[in-house]
Protein backbone atom coordinates (compact mmCIF):
# COMPACT_ATOMS: atom_id res chain seq x y z
CA UNK A 1 0.00 0.00 0.00
CA UNK A 2 1.01 3.61 -0.43
CA UNK A 3 1.50 6.20 2.30
CA UNK A 4 2.56 9.84 2.35
CA UNK A 5 5.98 10.37 3.92
CA UNK A 6 7.91 13.45 4.94
CA UNK A 7 11.27 12.45 3.44
CA UNK A 8 10.20 10.77 0.21
CA UNK A 9 6.64 11.86 -0.60
CA UNK A 10 4.24 9.06 -1.50
CA UNK A 11 5.90 5.65 -1.35
CA UNK A 12 4.95 1.99 -1.24
CA UNK A 13 5.21 0.34 2.19
CA UNK A 14 4.55 -3.10 3.58
CA UNK A 15 2.25 -3.83 6.51
CA UNK A 16 5.28 -5.49 8.15
CA UNK A 17 6.91 -2.06 8.50
CA UNK A 18 4.09 -0.78 10.69
CA UNK A 19 5.08 -0.02 14.28
CA UNK A 20 2.62 0.73 17.06
CA UNK A 21 3.47 3.08 19.95
CA UNK A 22 0.57 2.71 22.43
CA UNK A 23 1.81 5.77 24.35
CA UNK A 24 3.06 7.69 21.32
CA UNK A 25 6.47 9.37 21.29
CA UNK A 26 7.20 11.76 24.18
CA UNK A 27 5.72 15.14 23.22
CA UNK A 28 3.67 13.59 20.39
CA UNK A 29 1.18 11.65 22.49
CA UNK A 30 -1.81 11.43 20.18
CA UNK A 31 0.12 9.80 17.33
CA UNK A 32 0.54 6.06 17.82
CA UNK A 33 1.14 4.52 14.40
CA UNK A 34 4.38 4.76 12.49
CA UNK A 35 6.19 3.03 9.64
CA UNK A 36 9.87 2.13 9.89
CA UNK A 37 11.50 3.01 6.57
CA UNK A 38 15.03 2.35 5.35
CA UNK A 39 16.72 5.66 4.80
CA UNK A 40 18.47 6.55 1.57
CA UNK A 41 21.04 8.42 3.64
CA UNK A 42 23.72 6.25 5.19
CA UNK A 43 22.99 4.09 8.20
CA UNK A 44 19.75 5.81 9.15
CA UNK A 45 16.10 4.84 9.30
CA UNK A 46 12.95 6.94 9.24
CA UNK A 47 10.11 6.58 11.67
CA UNK A 48 7.24 7.99 9.64
CA UNK A 49 3.93 8.87 11.32
CA UNK A 50 0.97 7.24 9.63
CA UNK A 51 -1.49 9.84 10.84
CA UNK A 52 0.67 12.91 10.19
CA UNK A 53 2.61 12.82 6.90
CA UNK A 54 4.71 15.83 7.91
CA UNK A 55 5.99 14.07 11.03
CA UNK A 56 8.99 11.77 10.76
CA UNK A 57 11.94 11.04 13.01
CA UNK A 58 15.38 10.07 11.80
CA UNK A 59 16.70 7.04 13.68
CA UNK A 60 20.10 5.44 14.02
CA UNK A 61 21.55 2.46 15.85
CA UNK A 62 23.89 4.29 18.27
CA UNK A 63 26.44 1.46 18.01
CA UNK A 64 27.28 2.87 14.59
CA UNK A 65 29.07 5.79 16.24
CA UNK A 66 29.60 4.39 19.74
CA UNK A 67 30.84 0.84 19.90
CA UNK A 68 30.65 0.98 23.70
CA UNK A 69 26.93 1.86 23.70
CA UNK A 70 25.05 0.05 26.46
CA UNK A 71 21.29 0.04 26.42
CA UNK A 72 20.06 0.18 30.02
CA UNK A 73 16.30 0.24 30.49
CA UNK A 74 13.84 -0.71 33.17
CA UNK A 75 12.52 -4.26 33.34
CA UNK A 76 9.03 -2.78 33.32
CA UNK A 77 9.64 -1.15 29.92
CA UNK A 78 10.57 -4.54 28.45
CA UNK A 79 7.50 -6.07 30.07
CA UNK A 80 5.29 -3.34 28.56
CA UNK A 81 6.53 -4.43 25.14
CA UNK A 82 6.24 -8.12 25.96
CA UNK A 83 9.93 -8.67 25.28
CA UNK A 84 11.04 -11.95 26.80
CA UNK A 85 13.98 -12.70 24.57
CA UNK A 86 16.78 -10.27 23.64
CA UNK A 87 16.36 -11.41 20.04
CA UNK A 88 12.95 -9.75 19.97
CA UNK A 89 14.36 -6.34 20.84
CA UNK A 90 15.28 -3.73 18.26
CA UNK A 91 16.60 -0.43 19.62
CA UNK A 92 17.35 2.93 18.05
CA UNK A 93 18.01 6.50 19.05
CA UNK A 94 16.39 9.60 17.52
CA UNK A 95 18.68 11.86 15.51
CA UNK A 96 18.47 15.66 15.45
CA UNK A 97 19.77 17.34 12.31
CA UNK A 98 20.33 21.08 12.79
CA UNK A 99 21.08 23.66 10.06
CA UNK A 100 24.79 22.98 10.60
CA UNK A 101 25.01 19.33 9.63
CA UNK A 102 28.30 18.85 11.45
CA UNK A 103 26.31 19.23 14.68
CA UNK A 104 24.11 16.20 13.96
CA UNK A 105 23.27 14.56 17.29
CA UNK A 106 21.59 11.51 18.77
CA UNK A 107 19.36 11.35 21.84
CA UNK A 108 20.78 8.55 23.97
CA UNK A 109 18.63 9.50 26.94
CA UNK A 110 15.37 8.57 25.21
CA UNK A 111 15.93 5.41 23.15
CA UNK A 112 13.22 3.81 21.01
CA UNK A 113 12.53 0.14 21.74
CA UNK A 114 10.65 -2.07 19.29
CA UNK A 115 9.44 -5.62 19.72
CA UNK A 116 10.51 -7.13 16.42
CA UNK A 117 7.76 -9.75 16.50
CA UNK A 118 4.72 -7.83 17.71
CA UNK A 119 5.85 -4.40 16.36
CA UNK A 120 4.95 -2.84 19.69
CA UNK A 121 7.20 0.10 20.48
CA UNK A 122 7.97 2.68 23.10
CA UNK A 123 10.25 5.61 23.74
CA UNK A 124 11.81 4.95 27.13
CA UNK A 125 14.09 6.85 29.47
CA UNK A 126 17.61 5.45 29.70
CA UNK A 127 18.72 4.16 33.07
CA UNK A 128 22.30 4.95 32.12
CA UNK A 129 22.76 8.39 33.64
CA UNK A 130 25.86 9.13 31.54
CA UNK A 131 23.68 9.51 28.49
CA UNK A 132 22.18 12.85 27.50
CA UNK A 133 19.71 14.02 24.86
CA UNK A 134 22.50 15.42 22.68
CA UNK A 135 25.47 13.27 21.70
CA UNK A 136 27.24 14.89 18.75
CA UNK A 137 27.69 11.99 16.38
CA UNK A 138 30.73 13.21 14.44
CA UNK A 139 32.55 14.27 17.61
CA UNK A 140 31.94 10.91 19.27
CA UNK A 141 33.11 9.08 16.16
CA UNK A 142 36.36 11.04 16.37
CA UNK A 143 36.78 10.16 20.05
CA UNK A 144 36.13 6.54 19.24
CA UNK A 145 38.70 6.63 16.47
CA UNK A 146 41.31 8.13 18.79
CA UNK A 147 40.59 5.48 21.40
CA UNK A 148 40.90 2.78 18.82
CA UNK A 149 44.30 4.06 17.71
CA UNK A 150 45.57 4.51 21.25
CA UNK A 151 44.36 1.15 22.40
CA UNK A 152 47.04 -1.50 22.76
CA UNK A 153 44.64 -3.95 21.27
CA UNK A 154 44.13 -1.88 18.13
CA UNK A 155 46.08 -4.36 16.03
CA UNK A 156 44.34 -7.48 17.21
CA UNK A 157 41.02 -5.69 16.97
CA UNK A 158 41.62 -4.90 13.29
CA UNK A 159 42.72 -8.45 12.60
CA UNK A 160 39.72 -9.88 14.35
CA UNK A 161 37.45 -7.85 12.10
Amino acid at each position, binding site marked *: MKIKTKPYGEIEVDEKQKIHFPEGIIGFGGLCNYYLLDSREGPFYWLQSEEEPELAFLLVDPRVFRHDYKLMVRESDLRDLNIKDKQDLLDFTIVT*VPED*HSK*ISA*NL*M*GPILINRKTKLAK*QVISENEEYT*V*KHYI*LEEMKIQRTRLLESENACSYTKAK
Partner: protein
Amino acid sequence: MLVLTRKQNEIIMIGDSVEVTVIEVKGDQVKLGITAPRDIKVHRKEVFLAIQRENIDASRADVGKMGKIGDIFKKNDKNIGI
Protein backbone atom coordinates in the same frame (compact mmCIF):
# COMPACT_ATOMS: atom_id res chain seq x y z
CA MET B 1 -0.50 22.87 46.00
CA LEU B 2 -0.79 20.70 49.08
CA VAL B 3 2.28 21.10 51.28
CA LEU B 4 3.13 18.40 53.84
CA THR B 5 6.04 18.24 56.25
CA ARG B 6 7.60 14.80 56.68
CA LYS B 7 10.50 13.31 58.57
CA GLN B 8 12.90 10.58 57.49
CA ASN B 9 11.13 7.22 56.92
CA GLU B 10 7.70 8.85 56.91
CA ILE B 11 5.41 8.13 53.99
CA ILE B 12 2.90 10.02 51.87
CA MET B 13 0.14 8.09 50.13
CA ILE B 14 -1.27 9.31 46.81
CA GLY B 15 -4.54 7.54 46.13
CA ASP B 16 -4.64 3.91 47.25
CA SER B 17 -1.63 2.68 45.39
CA VAL B 18 1.20 5.21 45.32
CA GLU B 19 3.57 5.60 48.26
CA VAL B 20 6.34 8.16 48.55
CA THR B 21 8.85 7.50 51.35
CA VAL B 22 11.41 10.01 52.57
CA ILE B 23 14.49 7.80 52.74
CA GLU B 24 17.19 10.32 53.53
CA VAL B 25 17.69 14.06 53.92
CA LYS B 26 21.25 15.26 53.44
CA GLY B 27 22.09 18.94 52.92
CA ASP B 28 19.98 20.20 50.03
CA GLN B 29 19.20 16.68 48.75
CA VAL B 30 16.20 14.53 49.59
CA LYS B 31 16.22 10.85 48.68
CA LEU B 32 12.72 9.55 47.97
CA GLY B 33 11.46 6.01 47.50
CA ILE B 34 8.42 5.59 45.29
CA THR B 35 6.15 2.58 45.11
CA ALA B 36 3.58 2.72 42.33
CA PRO B 37 1.67 0.32 40.09
CA ARG B 38 3.28 -0.51 36.75
CA ASP B 39 0.99 1.68 34.70
CA ILE B 40 2.00 4.80 36.62
CA LYS B 41 5.18 6.21 35.16
CA VAL B 42 7.62 7.82 37.56
CA HIS B 43 10.29 10.09 36.08
CA ARG B 44 12.47 13.00 37.03
CA LYS B 45 10.62 15.91 35.47
CA GLU B 46 13.68 17.62 33.96
CA VAL B 47 14.63 14.41 32.14
CA PHE B 48 11.15 14.03 30.69
CA LEU B 49 11.11 17.66 29.55
CA ALA B 50 14.58 17.40 28.01
CA ILE B 51 13.53 14.39 25.94
CA GLN B 52 10.33 16.14 24.88
CA ARG B 53 12.26 19.23 23.74
CA GLU B 54 14.79 17.12 21.86
CA ASN B 55 12.01 15.16 20.11
CA ILE B 56 10.44 18.41 18.96
CA ASP B 57 13.81 19.63 17.64
CA ALA B 58 14.34 16.29 15.88
CA SER B 59 10.92 16.51 14.23
CA ARG B 60 11.79 19.89 12.72
CA ALA B 61 14.65 18.68 10.54
CA ASP B 62 14.52 20.19 7.06
CA VAL B 63 14.32 17.04 4.96
CA GLY B 64 15.03 18.95 1.74
CA LYS B 65 18.53 19.75 2.98
CA MET B 66 19.33 16.33 4.31
CA GLY B 67 20.53 14.59 1.18
CA LYS B 68 24.12 15.09 2.23
CA ILE B 69 23.78 13.68 5.73
CA GLY B 70 24.74 10.22 4.53
CA ASP B 71 27.80 11.70 2.81
CA ILE B 72 29.09 13.18 6.06
CA PHE B 73 28.81 9.75 7.56
CA LYS B 74 30.53 8.02 4.68
CA LYS B 75 33.44 10.47 4.82
CA ASN B 76 33.82 9.80 8.50
CA ASP B 77 33.56 6.10 7.98
CA LYS B 78 36.54 6.32 5.65
CA ASN B 79 38.47 8.37 8.19
CA ILE B 80 37.94 5.73 10.81
CA GLY B 81 38.83 3.01 8.38
CA ILE B 82 35.72 0.91 8.90
